[in-house]
């Protein structure tokens, strides 16, 4: 176990990367993030679910690019100048998530995470919880916002192996 992990367990503080999909703000554990890259059209693949946009070259590895919005059941993201790919590591495998905009890196307290109410999200298994964070904004009324924390393991692409490869 790494020192960083231990320290975090003690204080129960963790860093998350926040980003937007449409009007929603999501967060993933900072430790899973490998890098953030600009959007680049991936090479499309046959016989894969719609949300797998294709594969891209990440320093010599072939990495799938996932339309995260579609994966979560939202409207597909429209590509624009701030679109980017969050490259994450899920159970040892790499994947790129297309997101609308990367917002921030914030420190949250584990104790502040609330379990996601089942009714609020269409796929409860991919949301690890909800947390409120302060937004770095001049607009005082909008100082707090809710972040949906994603359960990356639940987003693993190999989990759907049987559905896809059959």
């Amino acid at each position, binding site marked *: 176990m790494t020192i960083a992990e231990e320290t975090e367990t003690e204080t129960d503080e963790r860093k998350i990367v926040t980003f937007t999909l449409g009007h929603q703000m999501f967060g993933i554990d900072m430790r899973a993030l490998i890098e953030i890259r600009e959007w680049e*059209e991936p090479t*499309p693949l*046959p*016989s894969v679910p719609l949300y*797998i946009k294709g594969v891209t070259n990440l320093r010599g*590895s072939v990495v799938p690019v996932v339309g995260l919005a579609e994966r979560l059941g939202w409207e597909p*993201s429209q590509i624009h100048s701030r679109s980017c790919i969050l490259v994450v590591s899920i159970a040892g495998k790499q*994947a790129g998530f297309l997101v609308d905009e990367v917002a921030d890196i914030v420190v949250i307290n584990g104790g502040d995470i609330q379990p996601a109410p089942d009714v609020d999200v269409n796929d409860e298994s991919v949301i690890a919880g909800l947390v409120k964070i302060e937004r770095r904004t001049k607009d005082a009324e909008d100082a707090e916002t809710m972040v949906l924390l994603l359960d990356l393991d639940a987003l693993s692409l190999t989990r759907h192996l049987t559905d*896809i*490869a059959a």
Partner: protein
Amino acid sequence: MSGDSELDEIQGIFFEECAEGLTVAEEGLSAMAAGDVSADVIAGVFRAVHSIKGGSGAFGHAALLAFSHRFENVLDEVRGGKIPPDEAVTQTMLNAFDVLSDHVKAAQFKTDPPNDAAMLAQLDALLEHKAGAVAEAPVVVVAEAPVADDFGFVPVVAPIEDFDPFGFEPVSVSLDIEMDVAAPWQVRFGPSRGALANGGEPLLVIRELEAMGGTVTAVDVSALPKLRDLDPEDSYFIWTLDLPGEMDEQAIRDCFDFVAPDSLIEVARSAAAPPPALVDLAPVTVEPVAAPAKPVAAETPSARSAPTPEVRPAEAAAQTIRVELSKLDQLLNLVGELVIRNSILADRLSLPDQERVELPDLLRLTRQIQDNVMSLRAQPIRQAFSRVPRMLRDLASETGKKVVLETIGETTEVDKGVLEKIGDPLTHMIRNAVDHGIESPEERIAAGKSPEGTIRLSAEQKGARIIVSVSDDGKGIDRVRVRAKAVEKGIISADAVLSDEEIDALICAPGFSTAESISNISGRGVGMDVVRSNVEALGGRVEIHSVPGEGTTFIMGLPLTLAILDGMIVRLEEQRFVLPLANVIETIRPEPGQVKATSPTTEVIELRGSYLPVKRGSELFGIGANDRRNPEDSVIIIVESETAGHVGLMVDTIDNRREVVIKSLEDNLHPIRGLGGATILGDGSIALILDIDALVAPPPMQVKFTQKGIAA
């Protein structure tokens, strides 16, 4: 917290070593069974079992330890020539090997250890019958006759090497004199010259005894010579120490664990009254034996004659280092990158510059590095084959069928990744061959065959593929029964018209099983359909050839490596794909009229008087789904597939031909039917590698691909 996972990891490595050891042992035992009983072979088996024993103890696998220990004892005697390695003995050892494998498995998967009582009895019988019984536990040899000292009691002198508090306790010699329990201990210690020679430091023992509450009460210096005769490497003192009476004798003796055996060590209870002054007054008379007489070990280390080991362990295990596969993969990735950068560099240079000697040299070196890295992943297929003999022995005893195994091409090297995945399919194929192929001895005799069935396991490299086949000389596939079964199971309709090959292929259909009774072997719930899907997931194919009455052959065609491919880069709608060159027969620029439609969706090409089906690549991949591009504006590549023979594949253009580094889609995603992987081209973009066999496979195996929408 991390300790457990660390231990688990080490355990994992231990079981890897066990697997390697079992392979070595089985090879050695098989060689012995075949008549090679050379010292090297026997020593190799011994070493393998010995290592398993060593680790099993360290990791607390008591049952495995106990069994391997007994097995090792027998092997040690065989190695030492005390048990002749005749046929019966070798057979017993083969059986013991099977039990040992079961023990390893039980330890690894935390299941109940096998019942080894009968096997142990057989091993013991071997040990008893050998010439000259062997003492299993060390026997205490009292080196010097105990001498009564001034106080009238007998000190116990025990050679130190018998003290072995970590494993095998020596038989302790107890004092037969009744003693006041509280009487203090008196210890006399006269280190020998040898105690100083081998990195020993007698002073440490004194310190340790002091730390335990001991007090030095006297030092006998009478043996000290004159200064000019004094050898700084020798020892001349004898210490006397008192220790508290409540101390455990063994604890005191433990302090002398590593003191040279020819030293004087006496541990005894002193007389009733604690008498420090008494001892002080009366210097102990020292017997000459305790003085540093010249023992054998007293020669200087450099002059010491090296004892020659009588049996040298076989150097079966080449010197190796263990490298995580992921590191090799990473290295392979980097080398792949290097190859790509090389070609970018070459492209950027003018033609004359490209031909300067440095660039070709660089390319050649890069290629060599690449070949080397690839060869690091290559392993002889023997590793997968080595499981088979054991399995056959089990199967033979379960079914009463007699089976002889022939193996061919076991040194054929395949990529480690492939190797790891063919074990299970191979197991099922062998089980299938014994269960359904080979007849009982009676049936075989009735059919005019030898009572022993033969299973031939072979591996060979054919181009970029490795062909592994399992053939038996059994009864062949009963097509009438297979067909009836398939109808019964609803796999085919009752009026289906099938060729012999198609009926044979039904064996691999999901949910098919022909076993009339669920036998031990086939009752495990996995059939040949699992074999097929496993092999296909690897980018391989399964073929079945069967001749009634003569036998059946299962053939697995597997990619030789998961790493590199000679390919042709083709374009479809500006997307680039790699076509494995191994599949390419020829390329044709069709003349007008050479490609003819036979239906709105099917086309053929006329080639030297015969017609071959044409598949439009763009349709297979759903790229430009309505594309009715003129065949004359396209290129048709005639490809050969294992499943559909020659087929014309229509693509837009051919870019070039080159070697590409295969990047598995499974690394970060999962296998996709029709694709053999992906590669990274010189400009950093990705091209998908086509799996021709899967792409052009005839129905029902063919899957039509549809390109899903791409976000704008």
